[in-house]
């Protein structure tokens, strides 16, 4: 772990604990896409810190370019500390496929952390999922799809606040999502969302 990552790791542990609960699978460093509910800026760090060291080294968060590319500090934290995959969210700035960097990362054998809602919510339970997860699942049928529920993080740093407060948060990992042949997009996304909700 490089010093920036170590600092982020210590900061996350002291602040929100990020205790893992493996409810549906044993911890493994198998290539995975971890998808979770999204309520705070600490979410990415919490999942990343909850993984065991071997998988953490190979797991990269998918993050919004408009937020993380703003200012040298954020960019440094995102790229050097977390090795993030930055995605363009706004249609008008897009050149080509917005998922391209995530696809490249999966092709390299990296795992991803993804928030399929696309933005932070204010509720305990996630809103409807966007289609990115479906496309990645189609393209990479062998990659494990891991539902994750983040508990309490909506209290630690609710949307609209600028600083986190310390609270013990748990990161619940469910059973890998089963693959169903020729499943329509909407059904898949709803099933994926239900897998996260089931952990709440």
């Amino acid at each position, binding site marked *: 772990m490089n010093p920036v990552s170590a600092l982020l790791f210590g900061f996350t542990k002291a602040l929100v604990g990020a205790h893992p609960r493996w409810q549906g699978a044993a911890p493994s460093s198998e290539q995975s896409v971890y998808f979770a509910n999204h309520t705070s800026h600490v979410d990415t760090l919490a999942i990343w810190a909850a993984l065991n060291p071997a998988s953490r080294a190979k797991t990269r968060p998918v993050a919004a370019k408009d937020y993380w590319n703003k200012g040298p500090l954020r960019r440094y934290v995102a790229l050097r500390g977390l090795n993030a995959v930055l995605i363009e969210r706004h249609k008008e700035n897009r050149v080509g496929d917005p998922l391209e960097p995530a696809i490249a990362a999966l092709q390299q054998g990296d795992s991803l952390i993804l928030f399929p809602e696309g933005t932070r919510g204010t509720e305990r339970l996630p809103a409807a999922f966007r289609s990115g997860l479906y496309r990645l699942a189609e393209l990479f049928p062998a990659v494990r799809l891991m539902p994750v529920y983040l508990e309490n993080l909506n209290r630690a740093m609710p949307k609209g606040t600028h600083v986190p407060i310390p*609270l*013990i948060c748990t990161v619940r990992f469910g059973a890998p999502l089963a693959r169903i042949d020729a499943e329509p997009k909407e059904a898949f996304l709803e099933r994926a969302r239900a897998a996260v909700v089931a952990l709440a």
Partner: protein
Amino acid sequence: MSGNIKFYWLMGGVLGILILASLIGWILHLRVRTEQRRAIIENLNSRIRAWWVMVAVFAVAFGIGKTATLVLFGLMSFFALREFITLTPTRRGDHVPLFLSFFVLIPVQYLLIGDGWYGLFAVFIPVYAFLILPAVAALSADIDSFLERTTKIQWGVMITVFCVSHAAALLLLDIPGYNGQNALLIFYLVLIVQLSDVLQYVFGRLFGRTKVAPVVSPSKTLEGLVGGGVAATLIGAAMYWITPFSPLQALAMALVIVVMGFLGGLALSAVKRSMGVKDWGTMIEGHGGMLDRIDSLSFASPIFFHLTRYYFS
């Protein structure tokens, strides 16, 4: 005896007890046969392992000096308050008061000890924080169970920051003939509180029959309370040589610590159960959370501090 020599004797003694406890735990582990017993022994051994870590942390902090001791107690307050707030239903409107509690109240309270400003230390939380926190919460215009939310935050801050900081505040006292040895008094307080907890547990396991508080704390028994309490009080009297007290005074002080510690465990157990949980957290293996470990300390510290301040400084 100088402070340093006392410290080495004390550490030697504690080390001896830990080695003995680890040996006993290891022998029990080898001899255990039934599954139910195995669980008890495993819990005992993880407690003993946690003890090694706790003693090491304390010894290093005391060895480095005043700043390290204040940082150590500041962190204990921080993690205890984190556990308390985690189990307390707070709302979006409490965000700023909570931020202030963690990142302003805790550092300021311990800086006041470091600075030796007793007057402000004693009123900072019960007066200033008491008035400012609800005022800040009111600014968020969220009136849903406002009094309950405010009360719970106040309570958490009083127990985990104000009360616990009184153990570290023993460093503030100017006790004639005891210069530079105040850290030993902290060690004395913590040792008696923890020994009392452990001995009550051991006596309760061995001879426990009569429950004293079946609803609030089912594991507390009269036999454990009396046996463990008397043993801890006697050990406290025997340790008078590290304190500024005479043997008889040490006996009385240890008794006060034991009684307050018991009451603290009882009251915080009631709080915990009203929140619907058995342990405050999972931070220390075998011991539950930080608050499970320092509930007795939080009640014993302010009383021990004020008795010492009133009669000995």
